[in-house]
């Protein structure tokens, strides 16, 4: 047999290595030129901000076994850097005739994972223009900064505290920058610049990872286009309130918008307006084109929309005394008969392009046909780390979700229902169902005191329509005034009853949807928090702690290894959300800013003499006004004034950071209930008299007077109240342990149920000693964080000690390498304790592999070769358990297993001589130790189990008699 092993081993060895040679690609010459991609093109992406190109090429045929296409980009044709790749499934290839790659928006520029030095691309000829990814090396990467629009994404703390002040003198003008190392950026992202030429090429990589030659580089020029047209505009005129309401379906691409505008176009001006729009389009295509027409439409509303979030898509404009007036936007329009007008919406982008929507006629309605918003609230959500506000409204909704027949006669049905709760009505006590058939005859009434989301109903005869009348009783509400009705209607298609439309007091619930918008002190725009369906009764709004600063990067300092960004930052906006309160990282620069503003004002005033057109003059006036406002703010703003009093950099920045955080995390909310077609109700901004607490000193309130009344700042909580039962149980258990240990220490005999498997451990070790064969101990397959492994290890300690006393060899194969040193230490210590350090073999505890089934193969091999007399399996096991124990049973070993893996217990029971089931595994160590401390704990477990059992029985009895308070006392998780 032994010779055979050796031979078999050798053959296996040769086989493995033989196979290894096979996959190495053969170096037979291939015609690489046929691997060059064809039809490579780079086209502008329409409707964008001039940052997008789409590459397309013809994919190589499936037979070429291509695994990926790599894309390279540069601003000159002689150096192209790796940009990205498209993976391909080798077996199936690419189905279509064309492959696309979108180079648009912000994507990766350089970060910590970039290579240190610039490398030529692999397997390319010496004169190849292809390089690897742009490296961290600033000498190479720095000059590339100006070829793209670079956005630095910086964790706020790094921007505020880790910067280095750098002064750069250009044209006698010294400018101050904040320098940051690459590691301080979360990412540096790049975007293509409009109207700039970029070179692209693509290479194919084969399955054996051979990089093929590149295609001839092509040029792509991204072009700034006018914004994408919105999909549809809806307009409504509410006659009795003389209010215009607008709602539109947003366009998909929103990155480059600055203004939402609404216009009225007189119906008899339509041709003129169309001509104007046409002319604008011409001007976009042909920059030489001179426009001559004026927009005949009247601007009635305009707002800023440059925020990188989803903007509000509803607007209400009031007509007062036949006029629309808005001083801020210089609007003063007289409105005649509303039927004479079309409404039109426009989006403007940074480049000044304007895209008009299709025209929309007003739907004239009365306010009584519009939805109403009632009873809505905002509050800080409880039991969290302070990152959620809860917005909730009205009372819980109940609705049917599904229905199925339970028998062939179709007289027994199972109906599923669901409930939407909110933070105010969070405990549902009862749900009443009145169920009647087509003729209105009552079938049954059901009181769901415990909501398991299902009803079983027996019908007299099969029915095609069953009506439900539903009412929810929640904490603090009887639901008397809220009757929900919904029918189950037989559907031909599914041959079953299906839930129909849900009505609340006769009104269709899901006709309207809710949109919740929020706004804080950092921007004037309202952004979407969430949309919900009409049946929903609340949302939670995430207010993240993560604060990030976004900065454009165009300069660098190669010597110090720094990327340079402007040191100015916005603290917040003023209370009217009109002006930004800006300051500088460096106090001395902030102090200088007023001088700069004055200089600018002087410059503009001087330039006014030479300006000619009215537009230019107006522009200059605007600039002067802006700088004057900045001066006023800087001189009078309490935040900036207080910031100026700090001497140290750190103290000043800390103060500003605090103000910034409160401003950024305090939100006010408003709600829109709409049918999606401008028939909406717009809530006021939520306001409460109750003043919210602050986690900081109350002095912050001087500048945040509305905080906690309309601006909500979510607070972190120190205790999770819904875990109270768990805490109480922990204390009871802890107390039990102490009590029982004391009892055990006092010498009182504690009865412990005998466990056969544990009693047999000694005999099993004795058997191995008699036979002169080793013991095998597998401490489970999971890691150290699994408590079962710890229990297994403590049993190992006892077993190893006994084995050492009997001088029997113990083998411990280990799957987890963190368990390995611990198991080694346990066995070593056991030998020392038994007074047999000499018999300890440090290689008796060894690592096999982390692969599950390979480990089993290893263990089985040991059983068969070493003929182990006794096998222990103690810990966590998975699907491999039976494979091990069945092998053990064929070798005739005595086997004792212990696990808490419920699905594996049956396998152990059938194949092992003794099995410790579940908790017995945990008891074993105490059982073997027989120390008062251990026994006391064991006894405490028993009594706690008794308490749990008592709760289970009492709970069952109570819920059977409709008393659900005990169930509700426990959290649902």
């Amino acid at each position, binding site marked *: 047999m032994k010779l055979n092993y050796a031979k078999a081993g050798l053959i*296996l060895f040769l086989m*493995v*290595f033989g196979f290894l040679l096979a996959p190495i690609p053969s170096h037979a010459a291939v015609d690489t030129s046929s691997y060059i991609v064809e039809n490579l093109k780079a086209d502008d992406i329409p409707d964008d901000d001039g940052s997008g190109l789409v590459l397309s090429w013809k994919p190589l045929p499936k037979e070429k076994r291509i695994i990926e296409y790599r894309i390279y980009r540069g601003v000159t044709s002689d150096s192209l850097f790796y940009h990205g790749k498209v993976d391909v499934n080798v077996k199936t290839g690419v189905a279509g005739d064309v492959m696309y790659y979108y180079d648009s928006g912000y994507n990766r520029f350089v970060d910590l994972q970039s290579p240190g030095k610039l490398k030529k691309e692999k397997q390319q000829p010496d004169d190849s223009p292809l390089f690897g990814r742009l490296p961290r090396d600033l000498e190479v990467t720095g000059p590339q900064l100006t070829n793209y629009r670079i956005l630095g994404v910086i964790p706020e703390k790094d921007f505020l505290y880790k910067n280095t002040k750098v002064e750069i003198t250009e044209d006698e003008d010294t400018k101050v920058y904040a320098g940051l190392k690459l590691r301080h950026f979360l990412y540096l992202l790049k975007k293509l610049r409009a109207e700039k030429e970029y070179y692209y090429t693509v290479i194919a990589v084969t399955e054996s990872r051979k990089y093929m030659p590149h295609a001839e580089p092509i040029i792509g020029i991204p072009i700034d286009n006018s914004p994408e047209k919105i999909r549809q505009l809806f307009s409504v005129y509410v006659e009795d309130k003389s209010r215009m309401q607008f709602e539109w379906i947003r366009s998909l691409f929103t990155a480059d918008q600055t203004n939402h505008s609404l216009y009225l176009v007189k119906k008899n001006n339509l041709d003129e307006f169309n001509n104007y729009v046409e002319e604008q389009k011409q001007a976009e295509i042909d920059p030489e084109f001179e426009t001559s027409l004026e927009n005949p439409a009247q601007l009635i509303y305009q707002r800023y929309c440059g925020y990188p979030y989803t903007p509000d898509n509803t607007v209400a404009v009031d007509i007062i005394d036949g006029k629309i007036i808005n001083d801020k936007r210089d609007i003063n329009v007289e409105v005649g008969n509303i039927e004479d007008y079309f409404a039109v919406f426009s989006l403007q982008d940074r480049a000044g392009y304007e895209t008009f929507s299709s025209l929309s006629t007003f739907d004239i309605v009365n306010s009584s046909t519009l939805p109403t918003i009632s009873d809505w609230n905002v509050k800080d959500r409880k039991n969290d780390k302070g990152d959620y506000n809860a917005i909730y409204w009205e009372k819980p909704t109940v609705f049917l979700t599904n229905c199925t027949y339970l028998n062939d006669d179709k007289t027994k049905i199972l109906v599923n229902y669901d409930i939407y709760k909110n933070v105010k009505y969070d405990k549902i006590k009862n749900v009443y169902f009145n169920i009647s058939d087509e003729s209105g005859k009552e079938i049954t009434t059901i009181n769901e005191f415990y909501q398991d989301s299902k009803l079983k109903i027996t019908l007299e005869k099969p029915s095609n329509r069953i009506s439900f009348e539903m009412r929810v009783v929640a904490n603090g509400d009887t639901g008397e005034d809220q009757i929900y009705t919904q029918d189950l209607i037989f559907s031909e298609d599914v041959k079953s009853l299906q839930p129909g439309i849900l009505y609340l007091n006769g009104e269709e619930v899901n006709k309207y949807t809710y949109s919740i918008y929020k706004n804080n002190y950092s921007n004037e725009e309202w952004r979407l928090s969430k949309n919900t369906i009409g049946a929903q009764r609340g949302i939670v709004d995430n207010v993240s*702690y993560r604060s990030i600063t976004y900065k454009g990067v165009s300069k660098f300092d190669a010597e110090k290894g720094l990327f340079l960004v402007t040191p100015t930052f916005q603290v917040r906006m003023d209370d009217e959300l009109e002006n930004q309160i800006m300051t500088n990282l460096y106090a001395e620069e902030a102090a200088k800013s007023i001088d700069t503003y004055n200089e600018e004002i002087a410059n503009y005033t001087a330039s006014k003499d030479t300006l000619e057109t009215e537009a230019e003059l107006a522009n200059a006036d605007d600039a002067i006004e802006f700088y004057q406002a900045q001066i006023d703010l800087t001189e009078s703003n309490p935040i900036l004034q207080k910031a100026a009093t700090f001497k140290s950099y750190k103290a000043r920045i800390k103060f500003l950071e605090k103000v910034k955080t409160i401003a950024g995390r305090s939100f006010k909310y408003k709600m829109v209930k709409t049918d999606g077609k401008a028939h909406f109700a717009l809530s006021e901004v939520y306001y409460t008299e109750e003043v919210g607490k602050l986690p900081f000193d109350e002095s912050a309130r001087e500048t945040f007077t509305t905080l906690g009344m309309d601006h909500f700042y979510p607070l972190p909580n120190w205790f999770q109240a819904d875990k109270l039962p768990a805490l109480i149980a922990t204390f009871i258990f802890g107390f039990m342990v102490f009590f029982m240990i004391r009892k055990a220490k006092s010498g009182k005999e504690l009865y412990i149920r005998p466990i056969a498997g544990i009693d047999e451990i000694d005999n099993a070790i004795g058997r191995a000693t008699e036979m002169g064969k080793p013991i095998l101990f597998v401490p489970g397959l999971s890691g150290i964080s699994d408590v079962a492994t710890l229990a297994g*290890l403590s049993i190992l300690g006892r077993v190893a000690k006994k084995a050492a006393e009997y001088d029997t060899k113990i083998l411990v194969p280990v799957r987890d390498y963190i368990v390995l040193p611990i198991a080694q*230490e346990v066995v070593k210590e056991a030998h020392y304790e038994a007074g047999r350090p000499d018999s300890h073999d440090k290689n008796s505890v060894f690592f096999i592999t982390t692969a599950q089934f*390979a480990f089993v193969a290893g263990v089985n091999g040991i059983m068969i070769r070493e003929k182990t007399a006794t096998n222990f399996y103690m810990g966590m096991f998975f699907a491999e358990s039976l*494979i091990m124990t069945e092998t053990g049973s064929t070798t005739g070993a005595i086997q004792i297993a212990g696990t808490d893996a419920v699905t594996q217990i049956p396998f152990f029971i059938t194949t092992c001589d003794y099995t410790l089931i579940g908790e017995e595994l*945990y008891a074993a160590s105490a059982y073997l130790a027989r120390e008062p401390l251990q026994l006391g704990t064991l006894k405490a477990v028993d009594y706690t189990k008794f308490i749990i059992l008592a709760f289970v029985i009492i709970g069952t009895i109570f819920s059977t008699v409709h008393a659900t308070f005990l169930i509700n006392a426990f959290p649902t998780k």
Partner: protein
Amino acid sequence: MKRQIPLIIIITMGFMFVAHSFIPHKVSADFFDWFQDWVKAVSPFAVSLGIMSLFMVHGTKIKRKVPNWQYSVITLSGLIFTALAGFIWGTHVGTPYMWLFENVQMPMSATMFALLAFYIASAAYKAFRARSAEATVLLIAAVIVMLGQVPLGAMISKWIPEASTWILNVPNLAAKRAIMIGVGLGITATSLKILLGIERTYLGGGD
């Protein structure tokens, strides 16, 4: 001292984690994140322990030419070659490393796993004997559940699949939950013993 310091670390960290599960505050959440980062950073170092153990065990076997030492050569060369293949050619699809994974590791694991079907059959044959009243119940339940899984069951009677579902859902689930409660308490007790320093075997022996 050798034992005291680890014990102090265990007890303090243990109580901090107990506190963490009751405290949702940002301070507590940040502590947990910080800890997670450390775990991620530390655990890869333990890999080297495993590899060292493997080399020591099999190195000794080869050196002493103990019976079956040839297997140890295969084990070590397999380890070295796979690692080298990964380092030299990378781990992308199409490299020798991936080839080894797909054509050696996966089928061998699948083979071991497939053995389960045979072992279950033989284990079932041995286990299901009507030796006693309890064993008879087990036997009948097993036959019903097995029949419920195949068309033959439904052909015999339409109640067999229903009975099979009932057995799985009621008695089986009840027993499963009872064991789970016991296990839960056992875990809590063991954790508490570790926290209080009653259980120290895992630190290596008694005190």
